[in-house]
């Protein structure tokens, strides 16, 4: 699939003369933010497989080596353990590494480094040594990638104390969350929903801003049902909400944006208002992070619920190649779950 990726310019549209905002896509937001952070702080270095001259297999780092030189933007050996582990060591020694793992599916060989080193060095050394670092990685399906290019492994990482786990679904959030990640003091796993790289377009302000972790975004307000998701499924939540709106149902759509920490208050107040919740993610269902959200909802606002919490997830199978679109929770499956909750 990577061979079909075209080198595309990363510049967005010209800024609005009055507001300075521009419309760009999600991958442009990533590229721009890395560049801006490298400009701002000489401790920021970027590395991974093919991120240099090639600009990354999705072109997320296109032009950055040219701009910042091979000392700050460089290709590494083909080894996720090295990439993640080296980021830990660099961070401990005072740099601000941004490591790219080519696909979230390939984080396996780096898993020990993530959970044994990055996540725990602050805790186990009593704060004497810390690893502020970002691991960026494209994740999720919808690009005909088969199971080694389409998985959603976020729950492995939300289960590990010491890591922060985020996933934007808009260019605005990609910029704001990535800035927070690079400027923060903790290791961050930054999942980029690859099917939205070019599909998600939106306005970004010209000024420097951050999106703080643990603050969900209300994409639309509603009174009948809370539809909650994150990452690549968000456009499907919007489509489902549109379809339900046509039937007179008022849906509140919430984008979690960050999973650890996650915005419990926003979710609970929404569910208290609507009385119904449907949780959507494309990761396999067993031990899915949304299971945690469902648990907290039933534990804390059980009396507000007028229906069981609904969940739409991926299947507990390896991600399929041909049945890509069938595997993913699309608008129809989301609408069906909402209807079940509404008719309970």
């Amino acid at each position: 699939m990577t061979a079909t990726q075209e080198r595309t310019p990363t510049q967005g549209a010209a800024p609005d003369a009055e507001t300075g905002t521009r419309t760009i896509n999600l991958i442009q937001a990533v590229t721009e933010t890395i560049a801006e952070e490298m400009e701002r702080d000489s401790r920021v270095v970027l590395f991974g497989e093919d991120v240099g001259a090639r600009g990354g297999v999705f072109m997320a780092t296109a032009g950055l080596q040219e701009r910042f030189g091979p000392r700050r933007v460089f290709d590494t050996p083909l080894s996720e353990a090295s990439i993640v582990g080296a980021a830990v060591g660099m961070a401990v020694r005072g740099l601000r590494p941004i490591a790219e793992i080519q696909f979230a599916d390939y984080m396996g060989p780096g898993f020990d480094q993530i959970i044994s080193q990055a996540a725990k060095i602050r805790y186990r050394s009593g704060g004497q040594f810390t690893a502020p670092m970002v691991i960026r990685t494209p994740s999720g399906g919808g690009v005909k990638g088969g199971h080694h290019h389409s998985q959603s492994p976020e729950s492995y990482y939300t289960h590990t104390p010491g890591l922060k786990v985020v996933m934007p679904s808009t260019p605005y959030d990609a910029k704001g969350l990535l800035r927070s990640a690079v400027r923060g003091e903790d290791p961050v796993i930054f999942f980029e929903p690859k099917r939205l790289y070019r599909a998600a377009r939106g306005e970004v302000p010209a000024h420097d801003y951050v999106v703080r972790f643990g603050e969900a975004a209300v994409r639309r307000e509603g009174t009948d049902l809370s539809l909650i998701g994150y990452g690549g499924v968000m456009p499907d939540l919007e489509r489902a909400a549109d379809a339900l709106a046509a039937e007179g149902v008022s849906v509140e759509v919430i984008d979690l944006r960050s999973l650890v920490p996650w915005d419990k208050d926003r979710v609970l107040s929404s569910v208290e208002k609507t009385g119904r919740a449907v949780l959507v993610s494309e990761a396999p269902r067993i031990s899915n992070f949304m299971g945690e959200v469902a648990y907290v909802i039933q534990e804390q606002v059980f009396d507000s619920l007028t229906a069981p919490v609904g969940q739409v997830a991926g299947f507990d199978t390896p991600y399929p190649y041909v049945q890509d679109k069938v595997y993913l929770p699309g608008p129809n499956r989301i609408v069906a779950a909402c209807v079940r909750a509404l008719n309970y």
Partner: protein
Amino acid sequence: MIQPFTPEPIRFVAEDGTPVQPLPERFTPELLRELHALMLRAREFDRKLITLLRQGRTTFYAQSSGMEATQVGLARSIRVGHDWVWPYYRDHTLGLAMGVPMAELLSQCLGTNSDSSRGRQMPHHFAAQAQNFVSISSSIASQVPPAAGNAMAQKYLGVDELTVCTFGDGATSEGDWHAGLNMAGAAKAPAMFVCENNQWAISTSIREQTASETIHIKAKAYGMPGYYVDGNDIVAVMEVCAYVADQIRAGHGPALVECLTYRVGSHSNADADAEKHYRTREEVKEWLGRDPITRIEKLLEHLGHPVSAGERAALIASTHREVDEQVLKAEATGQPDWRIMFEDVYADLPGHLRDQEAFLRAEQTGQAGQGGRA
């Protein structure tokens, strides 16, 4: 000039204490006595910790008896507090010789309030910021890629530091080990990888560990020199490690040093009777004959500056006294309370941990509500 890839371990002093090649000038009787004292102190520290273990005052201990020349020699070959060290779990002698206070090591083993890592790690997993002695992780070889990264950062920052990464022979079978050496080699990072080859990974012998005749020859695969050293000859360890450190500082990239030594005791208290289960008494006896402390004592005797029985006894007694004093001091600081569980997970306490801390506070003060969780 010291040669890499020698077929036999580089050695200056034979097992009977006679030099097999001229001793470098810096090895004056005064220095040799100082090294002897450091090694003996580490050995006695081991003995005392076993006693503490038997008394139930600590729960785990991994001796380094027999490996003192390797660890003390390495410590004395680098710039302490300037260079960075990513150690493995059997490196308390390295820490002691680098000047990590004995109080710090004991506090960690006892898990008291005076432990800088606040009782969060099992005994024997130290960290010491002042010495750039980075926190020890139990997962084998997981410190190797970070050490490569630490060295890459040093190169990026343009500082004349180097990074030392230690590990046992077992670690060389792990993927992380190969990944880390390959990365450091490709990046020409200023890293010195030191294999403390004590020939046993718990109960797995080096012969079962690898088909490779030695560890140091693996360096060839990563484009770096590999040095083979008699790890029980402190003169050899210091000469080779100091030479390698100079080479690295001169910009020649990383190197692998294999110190051939022997773990005389068991892996830990978990396999207290190693000879009964996986190795022979004959083998242990043979290696006791190559003991690094005995060897330096014989060398000093050969040079006409013997350590007297009285001096030796005084050194042992003062170490035991120091351990006893520091243990009492550490224990007097008490155990860290439950709050430490929530600190240092993140830079700031996130909401879910605040809730869980509040839940535990209520439970601990007898005010917990009915069921549920934070």
